[in-house]
């Protein structure tokens, strides 16, 4: 059994064990299993040969006849697997005390979730990928529905049906692809040239599915409901990893497999992304529920990811990938920040708080760091991703870059406004005064998240290096179809200032 199968087997076995163990044992089993997976993930990262073969740790077993148990990872998958295994133990810790009923089932569902998530990133077979991709619905349905908030049932249904409706069209597209190419092997399909006309249909079917998962405007409405109702750890994993499945599908399937259609239809992605960035940021600004605010901010961040990916160039895609990783850590951290005070006061209403900086200084500090990372302050992970992707977007289209940058300004507005209302101000309310600062368990969750945010912000090369080769491959695959951008990148000759300004303006107007 290879290391990848082992990483899938450990949580799967632990999940079954949790079902039959008592509450206390279930927590311990879950923590041990997720930590073991994290350790294996680190081994994976350490042994990953940067610049080596595109697909590493490949495993193949012909178990199913029609399709294969085929696993393997490239740099992008490696980084997303690292994100998943890094967040999982923290999620288990975050629900250590908060979950009191049916702990065994809860832990089992989280462990199944982990299997499914890393399985999606590892799958090298189209059908295996689809099975993992869809399987995530079931545990998440239970997590939201059983341990969620007051309106949890509605949110669970909405989550399940919305995402299912999206995915089924992708299945039909996959069947057509398998029939056309005669294989379910993903590396082969990545280099298969589908007829251009067929690509358009396949692209649209995939887009219908992945746009919901992403989620893109206007099919994002399941996300705020799901986030608000899910338990803290559920929101962490939903925002941290599940939202990345959509973007992963874009870069793994849609762009390299249907390059011509991607180029033809990129305007859809750009248009939806631009609307999403501005619209959801404005919506976030008006929220009075902390989780809803962060949920809308996730939609806005994901819109920059899609725009960055469809910039079709190295910076744009690398930046989008870094935003995915960064947002994974930061949004999970922000949801945990909400969870910390929710556990103490049992409300997510922003107005019920205020002045937390006085009695919870350590909390305020961490919250500040994650807020800044979400805004994209230099030195934090958010900056690296946003800078790179916006640079890439600018190369493709200055107007899209212009609109997306507005989103960052709005992002600063709603995050700082949130922070001001929750943490600053007078500490007047008695119940808020009585809230204690972080306990050791909460420290143990905050500290690794903060470390990751700073590491990614200060030395992003650790994360970019494994992915660079894969991004280059994708960019090369896209190059023949890539439309000309409107940026004046070849401006090596110095020109008079007024002249340069005029031509840039002119090009922008044409676009």
């Amino acid at each position: 059994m290879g290391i990848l199968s082992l990483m899938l087997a450990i949580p799967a076995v632990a999940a079954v064990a949790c079902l039959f163990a008592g509450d206390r044992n279930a927590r311990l089993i879950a923590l041990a299993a997720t930590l073991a997976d994290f350790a294996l993930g680190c081994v994976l990262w350490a042994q990953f040969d940067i610049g080596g073969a595109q697909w590493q740790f490949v495993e193949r077993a012909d178990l199913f006849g029609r399709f294969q148990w085929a696993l393997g990872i490239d740099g992008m998958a490696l980084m997303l697997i690292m994100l998943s295994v890094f967040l999982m133990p923290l999620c288990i810790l975050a629900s250590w005390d908060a979950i009191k009923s049916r702990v065994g089932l809860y832990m089992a569902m989280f462990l199944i979730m982990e299997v499914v998530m890393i399985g999606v990133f590892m799958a090298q077979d189209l059908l295996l990928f689809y099975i993992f991709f869809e399987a995530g619905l079931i545990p998440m349905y239970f997590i939201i529905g059983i341990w969620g908030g007051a309106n949890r049932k509605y949110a669970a249904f909405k989550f399940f049906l919305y995402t299912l409706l999206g995915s089924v069209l992708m299945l039909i597209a996959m069947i057509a692809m398998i029939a056309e190419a005669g294989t379910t092997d993903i590396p082969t399909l990545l280099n298969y040239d589908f007829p251009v006309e067929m690509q358009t249909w396949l692209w649209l079917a995939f887009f219908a599915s992945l746009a919901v998962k992403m989620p893109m405007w206007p099919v994002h409405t399941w996300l705020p409901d799901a986030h608000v109702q899910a338990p803290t750890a559920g929101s962490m994993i939903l925002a941290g990893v599940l939202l990345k499945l959509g973007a992963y599908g874009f870069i793994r399937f849609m762009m390299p497999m249907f390059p011509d259609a991607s180029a033809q239809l990129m305007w859809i992605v750009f248009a939806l992304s631009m609307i999403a960035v501005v619209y959801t940021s404005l919506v976030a600004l008006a929220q009075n529920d902390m989780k809803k605010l962060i949920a809308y901010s996730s939609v806005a961040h994901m819109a920059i990811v899609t725009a960055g990916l469809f910039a079709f160039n190295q910076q744009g895609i690398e930046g989008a990938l870094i935003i995915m990783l960064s947002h994974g850590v930061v949004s999970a951290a922000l949801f945990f920040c909400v969870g910390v005070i929710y556990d103490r006061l049992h409300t997510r209403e922003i107005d019920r708080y205020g002045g937390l900086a006085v009695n919870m200084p350590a909390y305020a500090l961490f919250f500040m760091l994650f807020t800044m990372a979400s805004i994209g302050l230099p030195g934090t992970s958010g900056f690296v991703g946003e800078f790179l992707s916006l640079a890439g977007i600018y190369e493709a289209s200055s107007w899209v870059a212009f609109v997306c940058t507005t989103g960052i300004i709005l992002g600063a507005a709603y995050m700082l406004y949130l922070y001001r209302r929750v943490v600053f101000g007078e500490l007047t309310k008695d119940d808020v005064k009585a809230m204690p600062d972080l306990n050791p368990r909460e420290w143990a969750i905050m500290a690794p998240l903060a470390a990751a945010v700073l590491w990614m912000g200060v030395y992003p090369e650790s994360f970019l290096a494994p992915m660079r080769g894969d991004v280059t491959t994708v960019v090369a695959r896209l190059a023949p179809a890539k439309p000309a951008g409107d940026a004046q990148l070849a401006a090596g000759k110095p020109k008079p200032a007024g002249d340069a300004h005029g031509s840039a303006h002119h090009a922008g107007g044409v676009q």
Partner: protein
Amino acid sequence: MSADLALIWPELILTIGGLITLLLGTFAGDRQVGLYQLAAMLTLGAAAFAVVALFGVEASVFSGTLAVDGFGGFAKLLIYAASFVCILIAPRFFTGGMRAEYPVLILFAALGMGIMASARDLMTLYIGLELNSLAAYVLASFMRTDERSSEAGLKYFVLGALASGMLLYGISLIYGFSGTTDFAAIALRMGGEMNIGLVFGIVFMLAGLGFKISAVPFHMWTPDVYEGAPTPVTTFFASAPKVAAMALMTRVVVDAMGPAIGAWQQIVIFLALASIILGAVGAIGQKNIKRLLAYSSINNVGFILIGLAAGTQAGVEAVLTYLLVYVVTTIGSFLVVLQLRDAAGNQVESIPALAGLSQRRPGLAAALSVFLLSLAGIPPLFGFWPKYLVFEAAVNANLVPLAVAGIVASVIGAFYYIAVIKTMYFDDASDVEVTGGGSAVEGAIVTASALWLSVVGYLFIPVLAVASASAAAVLF
């Protein structure tokens, strides 16, 4: 003649075994449940063994009226297995003591279904169908003192008779316009110029068969009969006759009407989409778990028909695989329903009463969730695989719009399945204390089928592929 007899051992064994069981019941009395139950189960076992022993034989017997082939064998094994389980689980349900008629009727129904699956002549088709139906009408009203059961029997009989009439009318039209009752000869005739009489014959035959598989718009009897009939009988109705009728329909459209695909394909497509959509929408408001499963079977028949609509060998393979997975799922879910009893020992059938089942009977709730999600076709449960196969067959037969419509409608279906799971897991416990377990055998069947339908089933895909391919190849 004697050579022909040697090839229909399964049918002979069922006939003789059924008669012996009947005599045993008559002479030993209804009290000797174990005795006649054992006789019936041994009969089915022996018949299944005979089917296996005839594996690889491909012949047609009695002047070409009955086929002995892999396709019929596959269907028969499924039918016998489902009948076996339905006899096995019955004694615990009929608390007043099971009467000997029950296993006898099931045996004769199984005989009829075996003939349906092997018929290659319009007359044998009708004899098999009626033998099965007559046994089934009696089974539906088996609890003769129970109002609902009698009502179910009557409804089933009246509507079933209507269906038989339509089928017979279709048969007579086809015979009249083709001059033969033999499938192969009819196919030759259909390969030539079509005329309005043949088309009408096709329509009426498919309508009559549509009743038997409870495809929309001929489904109206299904929810009432499923709800009213005793639960073991419902289990039987939902499993074995579906296989037989589906196998019969497949053989009719592929063998007898194969060349006239243009005439029947659109009918099958209509039946498929109507069943998927109405089966899903109709299920949403149901409060009774047996009615819900009835709609679910209508819904699933729609998916099976998508495979049939493709009209290719891959389509038939998908149909057979689907039938196998469907039978396992259906039997499993009805076994769970059979175990739901309140403190007084009465059957619990109302869905709201299942609230909180996940805490009272976690194993049962988990098994039912697996069955329901599998019926919905959500991966990683194995119910996904046959759905994938039928859609693949449809796409490869250039029926992409059908596949898209079907798969989008399947999302509606998912709604009511997850609504039941919501009741079991998310809602606060209901007042009805669901207690009462099943016997060890029932528990073992439920556990085994739930495990098989969770990820384990995928390991059986190579075996299933070989079996269904060799069975389907017979027809092409």
